[in-house]
Each structure stands twice: as structure tokens, then as C-alpha cells.
């Protein structure tokens, strides 16, 4: 997850599959949204891992 004062790196962040891109200054709410996104993606990954292990 990138946290930066510059918006010009967003495309590169997208290229490396960043989970989110926070532009400084950001609000507490925006940060919590980012954490929620991270959890969502990690939960999906873990579910996939378990499904794979069971096969």
C-alpha cells in the first residue's frame, strides 16, 4: 500500500498490484478504508489457500 504526497506514481503503483494508494494528507476514515481493503484481499487469499490445500 502506497502512502505518498505525490499523485504521479499512482499508475506505477497499479502496475505492481498495490492494494491501495493514499494521497497525503489523508483522513483517518480514508486510512481505515484502506485497511478494510487489505483485509478483504487477504481473506480472499487465505480462502484460496485452504481450498487449494484440500484438493
Amino acid at each position, binding site marked *: *500500500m*502506497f*502512502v*505518498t504526497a*505525490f499523485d504521479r*506514481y499512482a499508475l*506505477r*503503483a497499479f502496475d*505492481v498490484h*498495490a*492494494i491501495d494508494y493514499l494521497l*497525503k494528507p489523508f483522513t*483517518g476514515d480514508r*486510512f*481505515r478504508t484502506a*485497511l478494510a481493503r*487489505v*483485509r478483504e484481499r*487477504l*481473506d480472499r487469499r487465505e480462502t484460496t489457500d*485452504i481450498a487449494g*490445500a484440500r484438493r
Partner: protein
Amino acid sequence: MTIQVDEGTRSACVPVLLLQPLVENAIRHGLAEHLSAGRIEVVASRQDSRLLITVTDDGLGPATPAASGRQQVGLGNTRARLEALCGSHQRLDLAHAAPRGARVSLEIPFRTSAGRAMSLRVLIVDDEAVARRRIRRLLAADPDVTIVGDCADGASAVRAIAAERPDLASLDVQMPELDGFGGGGR
């Protein structure tokens, strides 16, 4: 089969399919080949922020050369999963039990959150101390977050990511030595 779970650990989350292979190992390698009957004991307890679980059998123990090889394969998979889930915050040992048998001891962070079994482990990377403090404050407000460290430059971030294997790295882009792209990519 005895299961002894301390009252304080009943709400603890344990990663799916973590214990089952250990119990299967105890049956297959500890008991089945050598005895018509045996005991397996699973004990869970809490020590501060750690969850301790042991699986003990009264079979021939881990020293049997034929058994130990296979035991190690099973443990190797469990070890790899633990490492992926908890980084360096876990421990898994196989030892002799007294008076005989084998005991696998497992130690993981104590977590009770319903959704995720483990807390989100986060590394903060920013060259500005003010920014690091702000991010640290926001993260600390979340009970299911563990801050594994903070770094002021990309090179130390690369080292910290390798050592701690965080779930998430919060990366600044323009930093001395190595920018966030180098850090995340490596």
C-alpha cells in the same frame, strides 16, 4: 484421547487445519505401528499474548529413525504455513515426552477476532518521522493490527520485510536510498 482446553483459551482462533495433521501424526507415527492402544493428549493454554498448544502421544517417540523422517515432512508443511501466517511470531517444536512418546509444542499469537485468525501485521515505511507517527497512531487504534516495525528508508524496509514478512507494508514513494517501489517489489 484427552482434550484439555483452559477456560481462557476457548475463544482463541486457530488457523484452519493446523492441529489436525499434528493429531494424525501422533496416531500414524506415534501409536498405530507399535501399539494396540495409546493415549493422545491435546492441551491448550494461554500465556500473556501467546496461545500454547501441545499434542502429546505415548508411542515410541520422535527418535525412531523410520518415523522421524515422515514426522518431519508433516511438520515441515505445518511449519511453512505457520511462517506464512505469523512470520517470526510462532514456534513449533517436536520433542520426547516423559516417560515416553512424542510431544509437538506450538506457540502462536493469541487472537480472538471472529473474522481473521491472525492480526494484520503491518510495517510502516516513511522517511518523515511525522508521517510514521501518524500512521502508527491510526494503526494502533485498530485492535487487530500488530505493528511489526517502522523504517525511514527503502533499504532497511527491504531487510524488515524479509525478516518480519508483514501482511502489509505502508510505503512512501520518494525516500532516500531506495523508493517504495523498490521496497515493495523486492
